[in-house]
């Protein structure tokens, strides 16, 4: 998977558990009991684009599931999840885990995938009696799928859950447009219960949240703490990109808000947390943010051209010719 962060986080998590546990099956179980939360912060001018960044990460996450033979569960209030799966990324290149954004996934491969979807306009709404508010139906659906497909017992496969844009008004939640929302704790209660379901099954969830819309400042901090891993995408407005030379090559910053340390005191800390992302034609790449060496104009122009080739390595690479 080309998003180095998710792989970085996942690799670190798997590494840690392999070191600490003796049973392979336990290793698989614990390394998937995580909830990754992707929060999107955005400068107002770029709203639409930024939901597309977080949605892109979600698609990478699900594409990886398709290639690995996992089952998928996708919930979205805005776009029909079936449509979202149909427009999945193509799998290309030698390793099978690199994705090309300009292509679509082979329909045969997609058809072979077992999938479950949740699209609120098509679900019957029960009365909202609990503190889960508008998310009660979603939690019930997830719990049912996990139990019916056996992810909490006998099945030795992984269920990948993609939950799109939780907290937005389309879910029936008013945390994104009210400073004192009626369902004030619905989102956080849901994330809490989701964690419980993940801990008891072979499943992993990626949740995207439109952070820039949330009116109550405390909620975002709570959402991060209720996730095992959390990443925030902060895109640059066009003016920022022009004024700051450091940012001109990128579309935004990627902040690591939380690294999982499940079943251990502390996970390996990353070297540095200054990461930036750029949406290229064929890939979404994440790189360490750094100034290029202060060499002459011609040399730095050459190094930028090199950055076009897809990079499937596990370590983030810069785009200067001095890096290897």
């Amino acid at each position, binding site marked *: 998977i080309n998003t180095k962060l998710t792989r970085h986080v996942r690799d670190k998590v798997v590494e840690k558990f392999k070191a600490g546990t003796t049973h392979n099956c336990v290793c698989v179980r614990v390394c998937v009991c995580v909830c990754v939360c992707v929060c999107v912060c955005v400068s107002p001018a770029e709203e639409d684009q930024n939901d597309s960044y977080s949605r892109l990460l979600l698609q990478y996450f699900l594409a990886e599931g398709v290639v690995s033979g996992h089952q998928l569960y996708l919930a979205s209030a805005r776009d029909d999840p079936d449509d979202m799966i149909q427009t999945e990324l193509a799998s290309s290149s030698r390793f099978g885990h690199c994705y090309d954004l300009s292509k679509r996934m082979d329909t045969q491969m997609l058809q072979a995938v077992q999938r479950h979807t949740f699209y609120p306009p098509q679900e019957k709404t029960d009365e909202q009696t609990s503190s889960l508010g508008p998310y009660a139906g979603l*939690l019930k659906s997830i719990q049912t799928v996990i139990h019916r497909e056996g992810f909490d017992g006998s099945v030795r496969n992984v269920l990948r859950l993609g939950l799109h844009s939780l907290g937005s008004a389309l879910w029936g939640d008013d945390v994104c447009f009210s400073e004192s929302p009626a369902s004030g704790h619905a989102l956080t209660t849901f994330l809490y219960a989701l964690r419980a379901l993940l801990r008891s099954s072979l499943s992993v969830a990626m949740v995207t949240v439109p952070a820039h819309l949330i009116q109550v*400042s405390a909620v975002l901090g709570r959402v991060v703490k209720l996730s095992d891993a959390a990443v925030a995408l902060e895109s640059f407005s066009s003016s920022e990109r022009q004024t700051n030379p450091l940012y001109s090559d990128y579309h935004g910053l990627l902040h690591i808000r939380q690294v999982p340390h499940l*079943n251990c005191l502390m996970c390996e800390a990353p070297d540095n947390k200054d990461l930036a992302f750029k949406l290229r034609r064929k890939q979404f790449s994440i790189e360490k943010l750094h100034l290029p060496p202060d060499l002459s104009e011609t040399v730095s122009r050459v190094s930028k051209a090199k950055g076009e080739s897809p990079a499937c390595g596990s370590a983030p690479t810069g785009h200067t010719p001095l890096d290897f």
Partner: protein
Amino acid sequence: MFPELNSILSSSPENFTEGEFILLSDRQADASFLIHHYLTFYLRARCRVCFLGLVQSFSHYSVVSQRLGVNLTQAKEKGQLVFLEALKASPGVLLGDESSDKTAALDYLRSPCPELRGLYEFVWNSLSRAGGEDAAESWGPPVLIIDDLSVLLSLGVSAGAILDFTHYCQATICSQLQGSMIALVRCDDEEYDEDEESSNYLLKALSHQCSLSLRVEGLSTGYCRDIHGQVEIWWRGRGIKNQRKIFQYKVHDKGASFFAPGTSRAVL
């Protein structure tokens, strides 16, 4: 438990202060490593421990404690440890499943106005029988550990209800039973202090109730791989006994090291 922290706090499993209310808190950092310290410390000290697992499952604490040399499963079987698996039981309770946990301990998930009386009764029942009717061995003073209190705010419990709960627990466990209580509160910079439902408000109120406070924060200069943050230890006694000290720390696979600010090996 962490030997370096024991020497800083001048305590050991053989010799520790009774009747303490220890408040752990964090801001821009994660103080949960201190929870593991206290859990293993008091089990080693042969105390009866009631652990409210509100944010992680039993297996998480069990694996970490194993690395720190304490077997939680054994402690549970012997009756030394009572563990409330609140996290795992929550979806069933929230969805009103037939097969879900019916105990009053999880009432804060049920009622339209969530409160913690049921949770308090659970704690009282777990710890009030100090020796246990069928215990072959008699355990030391009772200890309550809560990981963590601020998640209750996320579940819709009011700060007032949480403060009532801690007040009752302190009165019973610390004063009456001469045991100890350890609670973790996790805070954010984004919350306003004036907001009565924020963790900051909860932290302020609990700071006045506690006898020892350990505040964990990230470094003001930003993220550093070799120094994970700093801990401010505040002994809240009277007169000379009231003192504060700051240490920097780094968490390892099997423990944590504490050092005076600026003396990290990475820096010297």
